[in-house]
């Protein structure tokens, strides 16, 4: 199978598998225990925290391990966006956030918080001025993703964090898609909170982290123990943490190589698609994007049907789920960009990774070239 769905999840790096297996085999202790087995576990936890922090330019004590980016997003949005003293609260987020941000934001809204969702331009970018127009001194949280999962388009997090800092508004970014694919530095970004996930960068599923800037007053999330600075009680997922850390080390050591190699393959794919299908719309083309992501709408062809046909040809790409109604599923991200239902339902996402080869890109282009015209003859009306 040719796997081009790395934004959904990545294969686990062999080094990560080894590190996790070694941890499971050789390190039975609980990091909270006083004996030597516990001490060894605590040492591995400490080293892992350093490696994860290093990838994003943070200090180890600023990393709270979570079950993944969804938990980290929930912690940020519900921890800060819901008022507990009866005062009105306010969240500003973009309309193209992942559901891990949008869904808790709506929960906060139903609890009385005002929620403003900021739209994007045709290239899928938030305009910092739009955020500044909505957010003010009463705003409890601004949340803006660093890179969009569907289009790969990068968002002006640094500019908006500058504004947030000037108004003393807490600033969160969901960086689950960005970390490991582009350079991410929390000091440079100037954010207070940042969500990340291991399985998007060749680590295991079920582990992630919330960066919490030192001295930032983040609430306790899970009560029940002193772990994670008291913010998230419960015995640590040590094998997961060790795997996450190994993945971060690998990503940090080879980030430039990744960007060069994967970026070139993505360009090859994008150019090939454009050459064969001049009418295809590359979503977010012209904006700064992740090096590995290509979202294309083939007008008149429902994305799900193209994706399933490619699956039968042995190529895994991403789309919404297949649907036979009059209104097939449209991505909220693409609807926000295009305001055009047709384009929004006709997208597929190719997301490349370390394992992707030039031969796979050529085979994918050939399969797309064979499939799109066939689907078009079946469905002549867009």
């Amino acid at each position, binding site marked *: 199978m040719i796997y081009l769905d790395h934004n959904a999840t990545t294969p686990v790096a062999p080094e990560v598998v080894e590190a996790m297996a070694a941890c499971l085999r050789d390190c039975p202790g609980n990091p909270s225990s006083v004996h030597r087995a516990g001490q060894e576990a605590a040492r591995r936890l400490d080293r892992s925290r350093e490696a994860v922090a290093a990838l994003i330019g943070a200090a180890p004590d600023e990393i709270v391990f979570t079950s993944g980016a969804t938990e980290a997003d929930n912690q940020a949005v519900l921890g800060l966006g819901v008022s507990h003293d009866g005062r009105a609260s306010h969240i500003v987020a973009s309309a193209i956030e992942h559901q891990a941000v949008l869904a808790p934001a709506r929960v906060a809204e139903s609890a009385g918080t005002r929620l403003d969702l900021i739209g994007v331009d045709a290239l899928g970018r938030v305009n910092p001025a739009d955020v500044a127009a909505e957010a003010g001194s009463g705003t409890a949280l601004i949340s803006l993703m660093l890179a969009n999962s569907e289009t790969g388009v990068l968002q002006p997090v640094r500019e908006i964090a500058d504004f947030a800092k000037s108004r003393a508004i807490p600033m969160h970014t969901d960086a689950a898609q960005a970390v490991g694919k582009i350079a991410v530095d929390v000091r440079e970004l100037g954010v207070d909170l940042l969500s990340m996930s291991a399985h998007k960068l060749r680590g295991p599923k079920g582990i992630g982290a919330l960066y919490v800037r030192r001295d930032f007053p983040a609430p306790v999330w899970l009560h029940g123990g002193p772990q994670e600075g008291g913010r998230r009680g419960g015995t640590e997922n040590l094998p997961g943490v060790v795997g996450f850390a190994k993945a971060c080390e690998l990503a940090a050591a080879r980030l430039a190589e990744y960007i060069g190699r994967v970026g070139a393959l993505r360009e090859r794919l994008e150019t090939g698609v454009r050459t064969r299908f001049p009418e295809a719309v590359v979503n977010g083309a012209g904006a700064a994007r992740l090096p590995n992501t290509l979202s294309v709408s083939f007008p008149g062809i429902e994305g799900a049907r193209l994706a399933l046909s490619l699956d039968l040809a042995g190529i895994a790409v991403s789309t919404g*789920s297949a649907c*036979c109604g009059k209104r097939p599923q449209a991505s909220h991200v693409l609807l926000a960009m295009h305001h055009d239902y047709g384009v929004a339902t006709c997208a597929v996402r190719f997301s490349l990774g370390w394992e992707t080869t030039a031969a796979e890109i050529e085979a994918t282009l050939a399969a797309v070239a064979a499939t799109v015209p*066939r*689907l078009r003859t079946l469905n002549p009306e867009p």
Partner: protein
Amino acid sequence: MSRIVVAMSGGVDSTLAAALLHEQGHETIGVTLRLHPCEGSGQARSCCGGDSVAQARAVAGQLGIPHHVLDCQDLFADEVLRPAWDDYRNGRTPNPCVLCNARLKFGALLEFARTLGAERVATGHYARLLPGADPAAAPVLHRGADRAKDQSYFLFALDPGQRRAACFPLGGLEKCEVRRLARERGLVTADRAESQDICLAGDAEGFASLLAAQFAGGATRPGHFVDETGRVLGAHRGVESFTIGQRRGLGVALGAPAWVSEIRAGTAEVVLTTREEALLAGGLEADGMVWQAVPPEAGTRYRQRPTPASVVRRADGSACVHFLRPVKAVTPGQAAVLYQGDRVLGGGWIRRSLPLPS
């Protein structure tokens, strides 16, 4: 061999159908139709609950074939549930399974199959498609070999194009053989309850109240029970709750067994009779006939077990059927399907019953 899509409900029948086609060398793709908003409902209906997707996915994995879920909730509501509700409102008793087969399984799913490069759709129905007198014409629908499980009744509305594309791998098998073949193959669904063609609700009244909740905010059309002379016998909860021949659950006590003999939607009257023989009909009129065999001549007599009948085919697409023996509880909204032996000649929708010849 050709690429073929199998509608997989997660039950033993569609599972074995997929397994047989796969063994015959077809490139087999399993597709499960999502018809209800199951997520989070915690309900596990016989063939459409969330767990049917998981069952079908498990079997597809066991067979090593691809499996997809096709979300048909909107289409199912528009093309199957809404017309069924309209029928109930009009005093008829709908047959949603016929519509589901014609519009979804061999409609939307067939169209979806073509986008996957498959020209045919298979299901686990107990029915057979056999070549007709003209081998170039579409195959002709016949009863399944297992007369007790025969489902050809639910498939009469397939048009020639749909019959060409349809495939019923279980048509020649008995149910007990299907279970045995499934067990021999170690299929995880071998001993699972069958879904048949009743994926909507347990009983008719449950289905009607489900539709009332979906389309009318739970509102029904209450009215009166009347006897055959028009005398009011009591109040009823809504015309949607009743079907012709119904005896139980009427919600009125007459001191003697009573049956629903007529539903008058216009006046919201439900006619009760204490004479069971009043339910007997001498024939019926049906609309929207789909003829698939050589068109019968007017007045030609066809024998159907257990009710021999003669049929008059009319040019307006309707038909008039006269039974040689009286038939009980002929119900408007249900399908009338005409057989010659095992062969389906055609079928349509019952408009009204005809009285016994005097």
